[in-house]
């Protein structure tokens, strides 16, 4: 395998892991509430920017990360409580507009709380590149892939082996039946939003040392995460992960072999083509429509 191809694959895998985490956030919220949370990208932004603030305030990196993830989770909980819950009976388009309004609001608040400059996070374990088969690897890339893998394992354990996780899955399959079995849908929604926010924030923190962070970094990342979730099939956890990795690879290969200006066009064209062939995404559930 040529060194160049390996390089593209590695960077594709790295950015794909980030998209996978963001896409999982979309999938979790969609499963619990059938809402597409367009503010998901802003959680990614909050993760990175908050960590920068905590570090600037003198806190050590690990503590800053934990606090930033917690802060993002808190914002997620507030979003659910204040914006989604009051509007729970509204139509799909209305809910989409609400989350888009939330993302605009959060971006505006971010531009006030922080500034409009680009910030860098220090790499977790230094900047010395590692040589691997002709390609160079940043240590941060290993952090991204490693943490993403651990998080995925933890999530699998959470959804399949704990009571709360099973409750969330139950609500996603059949809300009424879950309620009849004593599951508090309101609590499930809160946990879903908090969890998705934490995932998004983590993704933002992991990638910030490589691609830097700023107040509006959430727009494109959110959109790409949404695209990945759709590609994988809305509501499917494994689909979100596969979609994210695939999107990252397509983007990286497109940027490398075609044109880096058009890498997004290439990626979206592939997604459109995939949707035409598979209207429910790669792993999406074939839904039946009740008349």
């Amino acid at each position, binding site marked *: 395998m040529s060194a160049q191809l390996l390089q593209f694959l590695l960077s594709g895998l790295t950015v794909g892991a980030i998209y996978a985490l963001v896409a999982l956030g979309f999938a979790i919220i*969609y499963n619990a509430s059938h809402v*597409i949370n367009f503010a998901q990208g802003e959680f990614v932004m909050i993760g990175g920017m908050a960590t920068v603030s905590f570090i600037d305030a003198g806190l050590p990196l690990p503590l800053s990360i934990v606090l930033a993830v917690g802060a993002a989770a808190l914002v997620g909980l507030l979003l659910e409580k204040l*914006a989604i819950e*009051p*509007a729970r*009976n*509204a*139509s*799909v*388009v*209305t*809910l*989409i*507009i*609400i989350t*888009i*309004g*939330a*993302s*605009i*609001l*959060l*971006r*505006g*608040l971010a*531009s*006030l709380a922080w500034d409009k400059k680009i910030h860098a996070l220090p790499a977790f374990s230094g900047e010395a590149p590692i040589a691997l088969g002709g390609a160079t690897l940043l240590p941060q890339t290993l952090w991204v892939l490693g943490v993403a893998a651990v998080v995925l394992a933890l999530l699998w354990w959470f959804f399949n082996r704990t009571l709360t996780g099973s409750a969330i899955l139950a609500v996603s399959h059949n809300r009424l039946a879950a309620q009849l079995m004593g599951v508090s849908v309101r609590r499930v929604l809160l946990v879903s939003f908090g969890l998705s926010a934490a995932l998004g924030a983590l993704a933002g923190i992991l990638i910030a040392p490589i691609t830097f962070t700023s107040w509006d970094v959430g*727009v494109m990342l959110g*959109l790409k995460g*949404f*695209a990945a979730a*759709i590609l994988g099939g*809305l509501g499917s956890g494994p689909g979100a992960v596969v979609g994210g990795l695939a999107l990252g690879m397509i983007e990286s290969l497109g940027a490398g072999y075609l044109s880096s*200006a*058009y890498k*997004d*066009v290439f990626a*979206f*064209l592939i*997604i*459109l083509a995939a*949707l*035409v062939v598979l*209207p*429910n*995404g790669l792993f999406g559930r074939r839904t039946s*429509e009740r*008349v």
Partner: protein
Amino acid sequence: MLLLLPLALPNAYTYEVAILVGLNAIVCVGLNLLVGFAGQVSLGHAGFFGLGAYGSAILAARYGWPPLAALAAATAATGALAWLIGRPILRLKGHYLAMATLGFGIIVSIVVANEDRVTGGPDGMSVPPLSVLGTAIAGEKTWYWLVAALLVATVWVALNLIDSPRGRALRALHGSETAAQAIGIDAARHKLSAFVISALLAAAAGALTAHYAGFITPAKASFLHSIELITMVVFGGMASTFGAVVGAAVLTTLPQFLTVFKEYEMVLLGAVMMLTMIFMPRGLVPTLEKALAAARRKPL
């Protein structure tokens, strides 16, 4: 009402705003046919707007076409494109359709921003003014009457469309696509025609905007502009043509007021969007209509 408005407008700036409202309203009435009546989502309509605008601009500025011909050609070409991509895309449902239209909008905005030899790139390009048979259309007042006339025409067409058998077919589709198909309505054809009509209106409004402003930038084809358009439709009231006009009016003028708040503009815009959707989920006009109807029913 449009005839009375000029009496209330004190200066050229307010005329300008009114013209922008009118142009946005034309797009929104079209978009409302697709979103409100046919029940399909489009998060990429700024793409059609941008294609109409840039198409007309490029034909007029770079190839020397007479502006009216350029406008017509750009609009027709965009409509043809909408017809081509509409067929496969409209087979998608719900969020998948949202993604497809979103992708389309983003593709258009990136291409337009990158092909700088033709489009002037991210800085945009200048556009010759609109002229009919040699005489240029200039001045806020002239443009105002032109846009107002076109808006009235658009609303008239939309209302007639909605009350026609085709319109009723569209509304049946929105209610339940499967049920509509069961009584013999060709869902694909009707969805496609709503899609194409809304694309034609968006493209025409885009071309007009380009010639009016004398300038066009890629921002007009951006995702953010698509969001603005869909918000205007939903805010004003889906499935309500006047709602679309009202939504365009309010959301075009609101940022003008909000600029007073400078840095807080974004925060306030987001807050307004959220609050109005939470407390008036069906949009402004239907909520007001319901309130009026309830008030009328109250026993004296």
